[in-house]
């Protein structure tokens, strides 16, 4: 169970997020929708534990994975090492299998710069799933892609999520992506941003957020 309760997040004197609370069950896929600049990525960074500077509490699982807007690879290590160094428990065989799942097993010994951008993005996806994440976070992963490549990556991501069934949070401004990948949609709006609507809100409400950082 992932429990998010953000009372307040500010950059300097500007409040960005206010009273955002929801829970996520294992295997559930949630899309966080809202216009650009509303604070979706900020929220995701709080959930991922990259940014700890906020009021509230977040309960997150042990194994997490994130797919960023950019591939964010270790350019100085081979494709295979990009998996085995990030996941030390992963053997070479398992890492090769993970590359095979995204269709780049033959690129194992290449450096990322020797691969096409599409292959680099596949490698980033393989890295995310290789750690058998309990929580997968996708931060506008298709935003900078042209239509064909976005479609290709979307289909691949869909298939991988269906196979591994992690709890998934997808941050996006595209209704189409949200509808395709997510079973539940959380809409953010306002300034500071709050939850406008939660399509999958169940009767049990999350506990009220308490003061003090998680």
């Amino acid at each position, binding site marked *: 169970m992932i429990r998010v309760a953000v009372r307040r997040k500010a950059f300097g004197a500007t409040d960005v997020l206010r009273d955002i609370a929801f829970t996520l069950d294992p295997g559930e896929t949630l899309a966080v929708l809202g216009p650009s600049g509303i604070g979706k990525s900020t929220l995701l960074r709080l959930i991922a534990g*990259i940014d700890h500077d906020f009021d509230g509490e977040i309960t997150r699982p042990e194994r*997490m*994975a*994130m797919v*960023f807007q950019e591939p*964010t690879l270790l350019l100085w*290590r081979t494709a295979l090492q990009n998996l085995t160094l990030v996941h030390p428990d992963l053997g070479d065989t398992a890492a090769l299998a993970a590359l095979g799942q995204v269709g780049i097993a033959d690129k194992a010994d*290449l450096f990322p*710069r020797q691969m096409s951008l599409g292959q680099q993005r596949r490698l980033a996806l393989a890295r995310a799933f290789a750690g058998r994440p309990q929580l997968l*976070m996708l931060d506008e992963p298709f935003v900078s892609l042209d239509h064909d490549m976005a479609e290709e990556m979307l289909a691949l991501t869909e298939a991988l999520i269906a196979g591994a069934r992690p709890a998934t949070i997808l941050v996006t401004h595209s209704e189409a992506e949200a509808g395709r990948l997510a079973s539940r949609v959380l809409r953010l709006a306002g300034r500071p941003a709050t939850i406008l609507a939660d399509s999958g809100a169940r009767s049990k409400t999350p506990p009220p957020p308490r003061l003090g950082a998680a």
Partner: protein
Amino acid sequence: MRLLSLGALLAVWIVAAGLTADPMILPQPWALVQPFAKAVGSGALPFHLGMTLWRVAWAFVLAMAVGTALGLLMGRYPSVDRWLDPWLVVFLNLPALVLIVLCYLWIGLNETAAITAVVLNKIPNVTTILREGARALDPGLAAMSQVYRMPPLARLRHVVLPQLAPFLTGAARSGLAVIWKIVLVVEFLGRSNGIGFQIHMFFQLFNVTMVLVYALSFILVMLAVEWLFLQPAEIRVRRWRLA
């Protein structure tokens, strides 16, 4: 190519020596061979060369270690940078000679003072370069290694150091060149052995031949270090860019 370029330098020397036609002022290159062999045979040259190399090695290791640590701190923490930056500017602009004389005056005419003087001369330089390196670290990769909970040592080795590698090799190469020159000055002013001391002695005897023998033998050693260690190391860490 390198040999050709060095050969051209040698040709200039031969022509210049021919024009001055006074071996007291500039002897021909081949006139150095015999004094060189004699200095090696007597053990004097290897001894003084060894002393200088030992000081260079110490100063290099200390300056790189302290300079890297300071540079990373200043690059990562703006508050530290605000405090230390004026110091950096002062030390960067302090003439090497002033630091050397002050170290000898305050610490005494000993090895500690000699090495301290060289290290203090070099640290600001390493710090400036590594501060740029720390500022250039990719925040996206830092976030990635954090989300995936990479162990701290793996983060350092596979995420941080490869990004710093060009800055580290740059600091090392320019560092070595500066350090050995300052070591010679330090020896010239206040040590009783080393290449700098020997040059001081032959300078007072107005023996150009021996000054050249000692200076050139050290230059040869440094060229060997550059070509055998530094450049291959640089090529190795740059492999992924060239691939």
